[in-house]
């Protein structure tokens, strides 16, 4: 069966050589890194940049619109106390957003970590050993590709409860295919290099060769796929939330906030737009970063 699922033609990957100067000159890389960096800092420093508790309800002050409603339309309750307004339960929207960044990032990172480990293990094993191992692993990959992710994720989450852990694990266990495919090709390529043949000749053990020769050579490919999969995991979490099976309240995740405000698209569009923009910036940054890394790790570069 076909294995050509990666967007990135594998032949363009090579050992990572990232001169800082080239990195800083690469526009996508810089924008992506800055965007993601900013979101990570906001998430990490959440308690420092908002004085509100993201879980504290204030039913008397629900659905206060953001500050600019006070500027442009003289809205009486909008103001600096809640600069981005409040949600359905009077919780501060800005606080929900910065704490929600933690959950969205957590889901993205952890799911990618799980899928990265599975995918890399399978891909490297298939690529390094070839033969029957490759056959079996290719079969596993094809089987996984034949299963519709969103459906299987929905069904599993529905059957097992939609806790943060379950959602992350389910996404992690479903999204490893691209890792496996790309790692497999990258490993095959690395294996045929002279230094690997040489290492084999002088009697290095297989684990040693994989650790010291193969893995460093597939790291760039890994990073690129990791960015793609992280974006995918965050998007899938949003889709699960929309279908009512995302993270459970009162946890704020951006996908959940977006899904919760879907009915507000007609009359209070700010409620859906704010988390929408946040999610958009996050995904855009991750994708730009991935593009940047791919370009920078390509032999010729694309500047």
């Amino acid at each position, binding site marked *: 069966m076909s294995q050509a699922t990666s967007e990135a033609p594998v032949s363009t990957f090579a050992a990572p050589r990232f001169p800082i100067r080239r990195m800083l000159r690469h526009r996508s890389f810089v924008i992506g890194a800055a965007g993601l960096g900013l979101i990570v800092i906001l998430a990490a420093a959440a308690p420092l940049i908002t004085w509100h508790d993201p879980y504290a*309800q204030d*039913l008397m002050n629900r659905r206060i619109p953001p500050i600019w409603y006070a500027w442009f339309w003289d*809205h009486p309750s909008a103001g600096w106390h809640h600069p981005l307004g409040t949600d359905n*339960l009077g919780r501060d929207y800005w606080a929900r957003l910065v704490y929600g960044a933690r959950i969205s990032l957590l889901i993205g990172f952890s799911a990618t970590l799980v899928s990265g480990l599975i995918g890399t293990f399978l891909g490297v094993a298939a690529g390094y050993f070839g033969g029957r191992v490759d056959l079996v692993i290719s079969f596993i990959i094809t089987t996984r590709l034949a299963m519709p992710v969103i459906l299987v994720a929905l069904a599993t989450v529905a059957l097992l409860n939609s806790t943060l852990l379950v959602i992350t694990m389910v996404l992690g266990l479903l999204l490893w295919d691209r890792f496996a495919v790309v790692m497999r090709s990258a490993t095959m390529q690395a294996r045929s290099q002279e230094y690997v043949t040489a290492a084999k000749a002088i009697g290095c053990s297989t684990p040693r060769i994989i650790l010291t020769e193969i893995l460093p050579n597939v790291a760039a490919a890994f990073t690129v796929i990791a960015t793609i999969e992280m974006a995918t995991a965050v998007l899938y979490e949003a889709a699960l939330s929309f279908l009512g099976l995302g993270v*459970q309240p*009162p946890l704020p995740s951006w996908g959940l906030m977006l899904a919760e405000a879907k*009915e507000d698209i*007609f*009359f*209070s569009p700010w409620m859906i737009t704010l988390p929408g923009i946040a999610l958009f910036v996050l995904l855009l940054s991750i994708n730009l970063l991935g593009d940047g890394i791919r370009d920078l790790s390509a032999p010729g570069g694309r500047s």
Partner: protein
Amino acid sequence: MNFEGLIAGTIAGLVLAAGSAQAQQAENKLRWSSTVSITAPDPYYNFHREAMILNGQLVWDTLIYRNPQTGEYEPLLATSWKWIDDVTLEFVLREDVKFHDGRSLTSKDVVYTYNYISDPANKINVQSNVNWIKNAEEIDEKTVRLNLKSAFPPALEYVASLHAILPDGFFGNDGKAGSNGGLIGTGPYKFDEFVPGSTMQLSRWDGYFDGSPKGKPNFSEVEYRAIPDPSTQMAELLSGGLDWIWYVPKDQAGPLSTMPGVVVNPAETMRISFLSYNVRDMEGGNPLQDIRVRQAIAHAIDRDTIVKQVVGQGSTAITAPCFRTQFGCQQEVTQHPYDPEKAKALLAEAGYADGVTLDLVANSSRDRAWVESVAGYLSAVGIKTNVQLLQYAAASERMASNRTHLFMGDWGSYGINDVSALLNNFFTFTPDDMARDETVSNALKAAAATIDKDTRIENYDVATKRIAEQVYWHPLWTNPTTYAHQADLEFQAFPDENPRFFQVKWKD
């Protein structure tokens, strides 16, 4: 001009809803929608009101009719009825009723219907609607007797609201609806098309009998379409693609009502929301076995504020575990008003001064903000909750298998104006009974087994008072249903959540 008005105004300027509504009026077609998809056309193999009640009364008729204004029973398919004794009901049928294929209604049809639906082997979906019926027998061509297993006081309520009369042999030999002569009934509308899970097309039945309290059909066609997402439904209403929707989200009701050509109508229903406590032994101990913890929870929740701010118009906070018009609903019970200090004190007394963590399961088809606001009040006094939103079946499974401390749910009593349709479902050692209290159960069973009003009232008194005093349930509020429809539609809502489309019509 406030901000909502501004946005509403902008949309209103762009939407020309009035024009399309008038176009529909010319066609005289009613197009309505809800989130559930109907998978069976008959009223019995359904869980959804949309088919149980709506089809039940549009395509079919019941033996008697309960006038929603007066609450009195009126003749429908039966001209008269009487109790022969505690367990026998006799009905005399009208002479002039015809099914959609032209043949006349006789006792055979009524006997078939009751014997079919009451046979447990046929497994109709809601057994509690029929499991008190022993059988039906034909006395003559137009006289039928319904034999009950034991005295069942609200029998006429069920007969009038849920027991649509099907033609003889409707389910054939294979249990397939309409296998013997099609999906026909005696009601004011007949089936044109039924697409499982998606649409239903009904058209007027010109042969509908004169003198029915439902009146002659007002529309030439009625079309139902399942639309799972409420935002999509609102978009359809705004763009003139639908005439009537319900369960409009609370926060959209206000701005939606400012749209030209749209009327929004929040109405109270008989459905009550409650918090139910598990007092059984649980693995690792169960803090709720201490009544002080249950009381603390009750005192921690500010129902009035939640009703006013979150649940919205059409809802009332309640303090008794039933709907006020239901027979046997005793209002004078132990009260647990909002008092967070008392709640904290009670928790400390019970040894949970540092807080406690409980599992809370809630029905996922209700507004998420409801359970979140309850959880918010609980966390304010130090009770942390692990909230799980589940479909009713899954939530029920949690209760049955003793895997949750708290259940926040609601029950609509199928529109039956009698406490037995509510409390007997939850407190008579049923799977959903997490209290398992002999006193309550015995009283409820005794009340349901006689038609003597005083005995019933006495027993319901015992049951409701004990439920409140022991804090097995914390009553929360009545659920509102918010309807929205084109402004030139005449529609009236009733607390039994039964939109009576046979009464609806376009304004002149």
